[in-house]
């Protein structure tokens, strides 16, 4: 397998020279950015093609190790590329979770063989990855995992269910956390596996969300055989892998990941604010003092969010802040999104909640719809409440919460009556 891309950058190339080369290449090769809904059917096929184009052009995986198909360059090169890529349609849905979370975790914990098999394929756009962590029995208590991985010779036999995996139905591989030892306390009996999603014994159901989208999935495992060679990290030490995966997740979602490329890296333009401005103008209220204050506040919040991303990223990279500080970005970002949804709903007014029949996507209508699922960002990737626990305990050093399952063999831990593999429908 050839893992070198077609153009190797000059190792001495400066960021500026790289930027100039990227600018020219982007103009030549990438289609202009489009406003279309990124979650619509077929979008992932489009992104796979775009990612392949980046690979062929020598701009895929800018911060990934060169040994596994990346460019092995410092983050400044990625920032320059992202800035230059703003006018173009980029495969940004692949940033989270594939590049920023799963590929990043594979870089940290994968064996040489695992990395060689998967990283170049990921960077070519051939493999989309997701994480199978949450379970129907409980979202925030990730280590309270009930999915079983029972050893049988050279394989583990996987049974149970996972939930809230985004776009699993169109993805290829997952990192899946399962309990492989029930005789030790909960964090010590978990193992992380690489799981091929579309295979016999795995059923993937799409979940309809309040905004009508069908991106989230639930998976059911019925005695799926996983080779021992697909264990990530050590057997029974999957929690170490999970912890790192979650750090990558918070970085990627918050916009502080070096492994994501293109628009959704948190350094957003003012386009969000522009939407509010457009609605205020359309309603003829752009001179109303209260409207102006709301728009200004949303604008300031976005600005401060990206300044905070820069600060925390610098802090963690330079070792002046501990890695759990990424929770600061996550919690702040969620609050800003929720506040903005509230401001959007206020500005949208009646047009945000009723509209003429037809499919014409009026901006006010989009804001009204979006407000229904605004809490999603405060739940996914660790709820706001979990982030507050992390910040208070691991950043500020405050005492940890009492946990009834600490130092208890997991088979003896009490579970609620609703700990089944089916989603509750009430």
């Amino acid at each position, binding site marked *: 397998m050839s893992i070198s891309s077609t153009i190797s950058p000059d190792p001495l190339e400066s960021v500026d020279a790289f930027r100039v080369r990227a600018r020219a290449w982007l103009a030549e090769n990438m289609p202009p950015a489009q406003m279309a809904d990124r979650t619509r059917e077929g979008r992932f096929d489009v992104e796979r093609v775009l990612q392949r184009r980046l690979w062929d052009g020598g701009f895929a995986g800018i911060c990934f190790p060169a040994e596994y198909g990346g460019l092995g360059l410092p983050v400044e090169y990625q920032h320059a590329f992202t800035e230059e890529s703003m006018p173009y349609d980029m495969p940004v849905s692949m940033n989270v979770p594939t590049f920023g979370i799963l590929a990043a975790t594979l870089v940290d914990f994968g064996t040489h063989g695992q990395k060689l098999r998967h990283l170049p394929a990921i960077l070519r756009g051939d493999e989309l990855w997701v994480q199978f962590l949450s379970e129907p029995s409980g979202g925030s208590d990730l280590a309270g995992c009930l999915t079983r991985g029972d050893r049988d010779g050279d394989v583990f036999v996987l049974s149970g269910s996972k939930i809230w995996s985004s776009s699993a139905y169109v993805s290829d591989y997952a990192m899946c956390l399962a309990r492989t030892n029930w005789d030790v306390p909960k964090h010590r009996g978990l193992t992380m596996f690489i799981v091929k999603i579309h295979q016999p014994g795995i059923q993937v159901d799409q979940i309809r969300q309040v905004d009508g989208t069908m991106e989230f999935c639930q998976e059911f495992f019925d005695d799926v055989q996983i080779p021992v060679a697909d264990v990530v990290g050590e057997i029974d030490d999957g929690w170490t892998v999970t912890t790192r995966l979650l750090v990558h997740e918070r970085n990627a979602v918050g916009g502080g990941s070096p492994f994501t490329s293109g628009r959704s890296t948190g350094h957003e333009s*003012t386009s969000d*604010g522009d939407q509010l*401005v457009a609605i*205020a*103008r359309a309603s003829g209220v*752009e*001179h109303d*003092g209260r409207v*102006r*204050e709301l*728009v*200004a*506040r949303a*604008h*300031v*919040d976005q*600005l*401060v*969010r990206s*300044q*905070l991303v*820069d*600060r*925390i990223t*610098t*802090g963690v990279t*330079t070792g*002046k802040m501990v890695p759990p500080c990424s929770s*600061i970005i996550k*919690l*702040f970002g969620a*609050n800003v999104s929720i506040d903005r949804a509230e401001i959007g709903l206020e500005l949208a007014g009646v047009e945000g909640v009723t509209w003429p029949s037809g499919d014409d996507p009026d901006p006010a209508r989009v804001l009204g719809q979006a407000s229904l699922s605004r809490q999603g960002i405060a739940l996914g990737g660790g709820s706001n*409440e979990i*982030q*507050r*626990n992390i*910040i*208070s*305990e691991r*950043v*500020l050093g*405050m*005492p940890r*919460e009492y946990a009834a399952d600490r130092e208890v063999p997991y088979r003896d831990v009490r579970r609620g009556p609703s700990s089944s593999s089916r989603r509750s429908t009430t």
Partner: protein
Amino acid sequence: MELVLSDEQEEFRQTTHKFLGAQSPISATRALVSSADGFDRAMWRRGAELGWVSMLVPEALGGGSLSEFGLADLVLVAEEMGRLVAPGPLVPTNIVAFALGRSPAGGEHAELLNALLAGEAVASWAHAESGRGWGNVATTATVDGDHLVITGSKQPIEAGAQASHLLVSAQSGDGLIQVIVPSDAPGLTATPMGGLDLVRRFARIDCDHVRVPMSAVVSTADRAHDDLELQMLVAAAVQCAETVGVVSRVFEMTLEYVADRYSFGRPLASYQALKHRFADMKIWLEACCATATAAARAVAAGRPDAAELVSAAKVYIGPRATQIIQDCVQMHGGIGVTWEHDIHLYLRRATVNRAMYGTPSEHAERIATIAFGVPA
């Protein structure tokens, strides 16, 4: 606040920290509460020897800084002063020195500038006018022969009654100008005002046909508007850094307090209801640091988005800073609302800062003007 400092800056920050800790502990600040000046002139002179007034003035005129941009160093002083709610007219004196250093007529004022740099004199920036909103000036300057005649009222003016000179903005026949006026000029009266901050003094300045020579002009009509805008950006950036120092210290001492204090047999810090509030305060505090840093950097480097970033910092930090401190008062319980506890000194400083150099609402309107492309 700024995460990455040069070795020189870090050394300077530590020197400033130690100096303030030794020369200006909170007990010394409390002792100044009933003094007329609100600060110790001898200590101010020693601060000036450390460079507290030099940083925005070119080396050729006797100033100088460690960094390429002096503002990057000045915000370190401001933040350290904030951590101890130290007294001293840092912003007004620096703004006047900055204006004199930038003025094409600066040579006329070398003697005053030297006195300011040495800490022998302090100066005050008399721009605000009561009830008119930040930046609106009704004070007039009319030409009478080879003199200007200044008439109008300015308030609230920091260190207005302590300054030897005041930098006064006024409407001339050609537009806005800035003139430097000695505080003992006939017709000028400085009346001390009350205020929330126990040591930061403000005054009302009344100019009743105050005559100054033409050489007193620091900013002519062709540049005063831009000069005043830049002075505001610098003042607000320094003030935001001070507020960040204030809030950082309050947050630290409150975190220590809830770890040491027990109720129902366990530390206050172990209650999740309180832990979550600390997590919220932490993200707000880091956001304050981030936006204050970004604003200072943008102003220092003369970036085109400096005005936007300063207004964003003013909009964000003002209400957040007071909210964090008030929450910290709540964490302290009853002791937090006593005169005895130091937290009110911090709350006073942050509350006053919030309203100065444009209120959060006024800065939000500046942001809205940028976002909409039109003023209200």
